[in-house]
């Protein structure tokens, strides 16, 4: 028992004294979180529209002024040639050429607006046009002094306001735990292997399993500390809201760390040199950064991709964590994701035991 205790304290010291490990497990993900939290993807998108009206009469000028008040539009005014050039550059979603007496002359005969559409942004152009249409309809009804048949009354119901940071936080925790588990193990153990540390240890009566277990235990501890720091910074600095049970959060994190430690040791077993670790580890980890539901939801991906993405180890992990942290999901709600993590964990730890050993296997 003395051996194991000393091993755990030693591996914790080694981890804490490694600047590289601290950089990748704490500093970098924190910077990412603060940057993404500050940018704020919560504000809705705006559309650039170009208005061409050489000498608008008062009614038309008023119409343009009202358009400018709408937050969805960023209105640019200019000559037709300039605005068309801007459209071709991709700086406008649509350009609208307006008759000068759009409103003032509408009583005599229907006025025509010419809309030039940016072919590169068909979806945005379509919604801009329908908003313009709606606005024009309203104006014609007002001009015709038609009675109002329908009104929409909006009533606010108190609901949880899910901000982007709330979405990001669980995903970022899952990603950081993955990075920590894979890289801190793979770099260190391949270095141990390459420099002969493992061979030196093999000459002592210490069981290799104890050494691996002590290092794994240290990293499980690190993953919990890491998670606490992220939640604290997210809540205190970036106004994130965390609902749900912290016990379940810890369960997900420990299970996720265990699963990725399996991946870390598998990489350690396969990689022959420290130089080959980044390539090999990133080959496995990098796709998950984008497909594992960290920065944007899996449901926003193309259908065929979703079928692959949702079965990635990181996806199970980030989904379970997000369900708990943003929706107060219970154990039964995330049972499927936990099962997914357990299966991946078993597979990866199995792969690790097959590939990783203290002594090179002799061919003889």
């Amino acid at each position, binding site marked *: 028992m003395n*051996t194991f205790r000393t091993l755990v304290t*030693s591996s914790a010291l080694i981890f804490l004294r490694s600047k590289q490990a601290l950089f990748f497990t704490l500093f970098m993900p924190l910077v990412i979180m603060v940057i993404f939290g500050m940018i704020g993807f919560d504000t809705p998108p705006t559309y650039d529209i170009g208005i061409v009206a050489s000498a608008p009469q008062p009614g038309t000028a008023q119409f343009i002024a009202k358009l400018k008040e709408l937050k969805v539009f960023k209105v640019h005014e200019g000559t037709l040639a300039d605005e068309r050039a801007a459209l071709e550059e991709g700086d406008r979603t649509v350009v609208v050429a307006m008759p000068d007496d759009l409103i003032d002359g509408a009583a005599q005969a229907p006025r025509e607006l010419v809309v030039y559409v940016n072919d590169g942004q068909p979806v945005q152009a379509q919604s801009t046009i329908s908003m313009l249409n709606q606005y024009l309809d309203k104006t014609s009804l007002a001009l015709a002094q038609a009675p109002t048949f329908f009104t929409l009354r909006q009533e606010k119901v108190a609901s949880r306001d899910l901000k982007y940071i709330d979405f990001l936080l669980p995903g970022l925790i899952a990603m950081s735990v993955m990075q920590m588990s894979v890289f801190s193990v793979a770099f260190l153990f391949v270095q141990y292997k390459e420099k002969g540390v493992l061979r*030196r*240890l*093999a000459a002592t*009566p210490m069981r290799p399993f104890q050494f691996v277990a002590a290092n794994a235990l240290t990293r499980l501890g690190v993953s919990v500390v890491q998670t606490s720091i992220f939640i604290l910074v997210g809540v205190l600095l970036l106004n994130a809201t965390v609902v749900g049970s912290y016990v379940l959060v810890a369960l997900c994190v420990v299970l996720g760390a265990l699963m990725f430690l399996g991946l870390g040791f598998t990489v350690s077993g396969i990689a022959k040199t420290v130089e080959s670790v980044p390539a090999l580890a990133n080959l496995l980890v990098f796709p998950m950064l984008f497909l594992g539901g960290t920065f944007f939801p899996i449901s926003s991906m193309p259908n065929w991709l979703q079928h692959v993405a949702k079965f990635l180890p990181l996806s199970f992990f980030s989904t379970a964590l997000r369900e708990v942290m943003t929706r107060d999901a219970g154990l039964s709600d995330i049972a499927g994701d936990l099962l997914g993590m357990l299966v991946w964990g078993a597979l990866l730890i199995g792969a690790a035991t097959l590939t990783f050993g203290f*002594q090179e296997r002799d061919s003889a």
Partner: protein
Amino acid sequence: MQSPLAQYLSDAANAGMTMAEAARALADAGWTTAHLAAAFGHSVVPMGSADVIEVADLVKRYATTTAVAGISFTVRRGEVFGILGPNGAGKTTTLEMIEGLRNPTSGSIHIDGLNVATQANAVKHRIGVQPQASTFFDGLTLRETLILFASFYDRTVDPDALLADVQLQEKATSKVNELSGGQKQRFSIAVGLVNEPVVLFLDEPTTGLDPQARRNLWDLVRQVNARGTTVVLTTHYMDEAEVLCDRIAVMDHGVIVALDTTANLLAAHGGDAIIEFTSDRQVDETLLAGLREVRSVRHEDGTHFVATAQPRHTLDDLFGAGRTQGFAIGSLTLKRPSLEDVFLNLTGHQLRE
């Protein structure tokens, strides 16, 4: 004395077992020195006391090469035993098989009467190891590293005393990667000593060290050996083997070509010593050839070369002849055979090429 033990011993003798085999079989059957003492009525020297390592018919074959091609030898308790040979001779492979770090293709190894293949853990408690490339944990200090390694043996050590033994006491809070090459090797020996091993293995301990650091390390090895620890080392340095080792196994291409004390190796395989001298006038070659123990004589560029099996007698005669025949000896050099010559004579090639 018709005890089961006496019966067993007479059966063993009838079956033609050697002493070592009988002792090992007894140990395997659970007999200890205490049992034997009780049976014989007086205290018994521990089994296998003379030989601490027994290697028999050791072979290591890889897919395309044979690194060790069937070697047998024993290491005596308390000696410094050297395995000398060029790079690629199979020294490190042999050492690592004895340490239990590599599995032999065939053959057996016993340390302190324990089988390395089947009693690996007990063996590891009895040995200390300094591998060729000794690296430790970058994040730990020397003191922390020693405490960690001691815990592997369920021991608590005084790390500072161990560091003082290898003259690194002032480095206790330094990291291993801050040490010089010689300091690293000395620290590696300190780590190898945390369990007070019966045998300490050193794999090319001074390769890459400067002359001063080598001498320091030799002193340390002698000091460790003087405290009763058997030392087994590999080296491709003649001087190291000559200075440190009580007995030397000369290895080449996976086999042991000779094993003896340095003196015996030199006497048996070193060839003749050469006396080179100049004199005020040329000395008659038949006169020189007639001196005691002289093997051959030649004269070149004013220098006489006299090969002798026993330089003491030849020199005695040479100075006598100088007085009686009236020639004066100018400069004189005696070239004794070295292990280099032993190796050349045994294998037909140089140790380092």
